[in-house]
């Protein structure tokens, strides 16, 4: 969280926040471990989803068609990045941010606001769900496999770390901003479903789409920054300007999410008073 780190963890409180994070996550893992069967079901579901995703991509490449400038293995890398992001959102984003609505509906947001800790930090990190781990593993395996087939040097994986981080930040910020709108519209469970639906476009590199789609998914809903740009960095063919652009966008959206939350809180009238 490069720039965001400074704003969220101000003046040496970082240690305290890290300690709190450790407590949050160990308790939530302990709680989830009660449902071990569910974990295996989730793993099975992830594997099937993974096979299905590859099958969906294969349908394009089956007859010799290729996305302009993307070989099969290269398109697999995009899918791998997409799977990683899916894992990220089901370990951290979905379990936390989908509860904002609940807190507002039931008025339990009061208790969050009373704690001596940044409320955005609390809402965004308090649950760690191991259910996304299979996706993270599968995404990693797919990238490793495709990367080995393409003979990518190790440094390339490192090159993609930064754009990947920016992608996660962008996704988080958009999701959080949408979640925060529930302060006004209490019954807004589905707004994040719309976001999730749009992000599906990240399964394929942007060139797979017609020009209007590309414009929309770059400048309106920045899906291009989530999967295509990290994948290009990994393939060693991204222009540096795009990474910088992604960094700016990520920083700006993170600040926007923070500002928006402060703004939204002014309109919060608890459920009981």
């Amino acid at each position, binding site marked *: 969280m490069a720039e965001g780190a400074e704003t969220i963890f101000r003046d040496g409180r970082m240690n305290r926040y890290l300690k709190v994070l450790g407590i949050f996550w160990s308790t939530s893992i302990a709680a989830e471990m009660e449902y071990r069967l569910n974990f295996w079901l989730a793993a099975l*579901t992830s594997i*099937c989803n993974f096979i299905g995703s590859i099958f969906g991509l294969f349908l394009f490449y089956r007859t010799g068609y290729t996305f302009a400038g993307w070989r099969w293995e290269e398109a697999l890398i995009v899918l791998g990045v997409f799977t990683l992001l899916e894992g990220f959102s089901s370990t951290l984003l979905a379990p936390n941010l989908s509860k904002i609505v609940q807190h507002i509906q039931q008025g339990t947001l009061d208790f969050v606001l009373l704690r001596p800790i940044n409320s955005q930090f609390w809402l965004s990190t308090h649950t760690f769900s191991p259910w996304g781990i299979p996706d993270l593993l599968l995404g990693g395996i797919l990238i490793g496999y495709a990367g080995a087939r393409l003979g990518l040097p190790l440094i390339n994986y490192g090159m993609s770390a930064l754009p990947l981080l920016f992608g996660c930040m962008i996704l988080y910020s958009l999701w959080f901003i949408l979640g925060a709108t529930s302060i006004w519209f209490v019954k807004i469970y*589905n707004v994040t479903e719309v976001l999730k639906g749009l992000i599906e476009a990240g399964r394929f590199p942007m060139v*797979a789409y017609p020009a209007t*789609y590309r414009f929309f998914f770059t400048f309106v809903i920045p899906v291009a920054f989530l999967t295509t740009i990290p994948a290009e960095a990994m393939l060693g063919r991204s222009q540096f300007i795009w990474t910088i652009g992604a960094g700016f966008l990520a920083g700006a959206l993170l600040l926007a999410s923070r500002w928006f939350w402060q703004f939204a809180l002014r309109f919060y009238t608890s459920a009981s008073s």
Partner: protein
Amino acid sequence: MHQPLRVIRTLLSVQYAYMLEYRAELLLWVLAGVLPFILMGAWMQAAQGGQFGLTPLEFARYFLATFIARQFSIVWVIWEFEREVVEGKLSPRLLQPIDPGWYHFTSHISERVARLPFAIALVIIFFLIYPQAFWIPSLQGSLLFTLSVLLAFGLRFIMQYTFAMFAFWIERARAIEEFWFLLYLFLSGLIAPLELFPPVVREIVLWTPFPYMIHFPAALLVGIPVDVGRSLFVIFLWSSAFLVLNRWLWRKGLKQYSGMGA
């Protein structure tokens, strides 16, 4: 004879009023179903080369048709039923002189009616943006489409309601549905028309219930040739198999049921 009709009419109107309260939610649900439009873009771009046997225009129509077909076959009964069993809310329903299945069934039908205006609006917007794609389906195609979406909804409902019965024995019956949904997602023709599947895969998939929920109605609407007789036969087979299983599990499950207050 009049009694059941009156009951059904009352249930429908109550549920419809209830659904109207959630209009904003419904709009968002319709918007969340944009997947067909995303895939439409990718496939239209791919079809430029002409090696897929369908033109970009045919892809556009096919995916629009999948969007419409999907609006009719959205089912969530397992989430409601599971909650009712776990929280014991099924008990008061059992006292009513009507099978609880009807309650869920009418709730889905009413939601469909409440959802329709949003879906129609989206279709109109689509044609305004992309008027070349406009087409008028044949009369026969439209009639068969209407029949097929009704059957598709029935099949999907009875399948999910059958899985819901497992809530009597396990805590999270919806995990079964979540798994089943993946098969539905990839095999129903939602991600690509079945014509593009490798022939062996297609032959196998045609014996599963999945393509009859999306691909079959969509193909009828667009005018892609399908074997109507065989399709209806497969739908009938799966629907009756699940119906029998459902009633059997219901009877077994009620004996098992010990929800709060039961």
